[in-house]
């Protein structure tokens, strides 16, 4: 009983994630896209996968180019919140 109460207390309202589309292209990022779409509640059509994968691959390649650039841990991001 206590377990059931705790379970309800921990339950958070969340949108029902869209049912992910079947993997369509065999691209290495397909599983990631499928999982991310589920987590973001984005309904994807199978025919969109190749273009999304190509764009995501570009994003990640360019992000890696930036991320590999060594900067001190103390470096602040450009967007700094000011109270």
């Amino acid at each position, binding site marked *: 009983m206590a377990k059931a109460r705790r379970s309800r207390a921990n339950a958070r309202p969340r949108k029902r994630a869209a049912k992910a589309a079947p993997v369509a292209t065999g691209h290495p990022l397909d599983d990631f896209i499928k999982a991310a779409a589920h987590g973001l509640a*984005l309904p994807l059509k199978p025919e969109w996968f190749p*273009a999304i994968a190509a764009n*995501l691959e570009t994003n990640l390649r360019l992000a890696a180019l930036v991320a590999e650039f060594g900067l001190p841990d103390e*470096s602040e991001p450009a967007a700094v919140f000011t109270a």
Partner: protein
Amino acid sequence: MAINPISATAAEIAYAMKAGEVCATVLVEATLRAIHMRDPVLNSFTAVTAERARARAEAIDRDQARGLPSGPLAGVPFAVKNLFDVEGLATLAGSKINRARAPAARDAVVIERLESAGAILVGTLNMGEYAYDFTGENIHDGPSRNPHDLSRMTGGSSGGSAAAVAGRLVPLSLGSDTNGSIRVPASLCGLFGLKPTYGRLPRARTFPFVASLDHLGPLARSTVDLALAYDAMQGPDPEDAACADRPIEPVTSLLQRGLDGLRIAVAGGYFRAGASREAVVAVDRVAAALGVNQDIEIPEAARARAAAYVITATEGAALHLERLRKRAPDFDPAVRDRLIAGAMVPAALVTKAQIFRRWYRARVLELFEKVDAILAPATPCTAPSIGQKTFVLDGEELPVRANLGIYTQPISFIGLPVVAVPVPLAPLPIGVQIITAPWREDVALRIAYALEEMGVAAAPEPQPN
């Protein structure tokens, strides 16, 4: 009439108005006729605000008749990219989805400021969907067409803003520039375009794309026209959180100060790699005219472009996330797929891009201790064909839509002011960026004016249609 209302610049129109040589109603009628006759080919307008323009022109003429002073843009017809709020119109931002929005209750701040200076809004202009575009192609409204070759792209996303001015429908338009969306179409259509410092012009009541990168600015056929419009739009605005609390710093009266004392260099390395012969010729021609003989390296420009790309994809995705959930099929597929991919980039990588951004800004600002302005190509090539999906840059085949802005992105990434000047090569023009330190639009505009006076920069006549 002393001027031709179709080919006259904004400055010529305002001068003729002040001299009483022309009236605003005649100017507006001539403009509406030109739009009616020629825009079916150029496809630059998505709405023509004819009745509003006529009413405004009549009011200006009444004021003139009563001897009231005319504004610096008196009688100048202008049009705006359709992401600017215009009272009574839904703000489309190039999309199908936004057509269901309620009509805007009030004009964008910069429209109000231009009209306070005497200008007359005549309509809204075609653009790439949600400004995520460098081509000027719009799946819902059709592509805007390059007035110098109708089979070619205008560039984007402010494609209609460029086609309308280059095609001699209006002397002045407004666009927005997140990664190059003023400078790219200015380059491909042979126009002068100003992307001011980030935070200089207020963006209130415009539809955003990437809040930390969005800028507004004018496109015109002369430097003076850019300066007149820019001066009229300056000033703080509490409704735009990013708009700087700086006094107005007018530039029009400074244009003729010349080049004395200005230190100018050409951006090397990244800004030469991948450039077509035309892009190199244009920069070299401008550099030669200015007597520039030094190159300068903008450090890590490729990484800056990459970081701008990542921040754009992710901030843009955040803006549109709910629409992607509910209305994904109503997007242009090319935009939708990029936004969805942007939503999937891990936050750690976005933060890395923002950390790099601060580092890069500091390094580039150091360059401005040595030089006052840097020259770089605005686009890697002249206008590609409408519908062309890829081109070859530096030996690599790349998508046109994402890569026309490779030379503009590293600059707007840190909000530097830029004037794109047109170099009238045959058969197609191409632009050169004049990049200066933050808040030094005056220097970039002075150099642009000098190049125009030398005949090196000029907006070429469009192809007759």
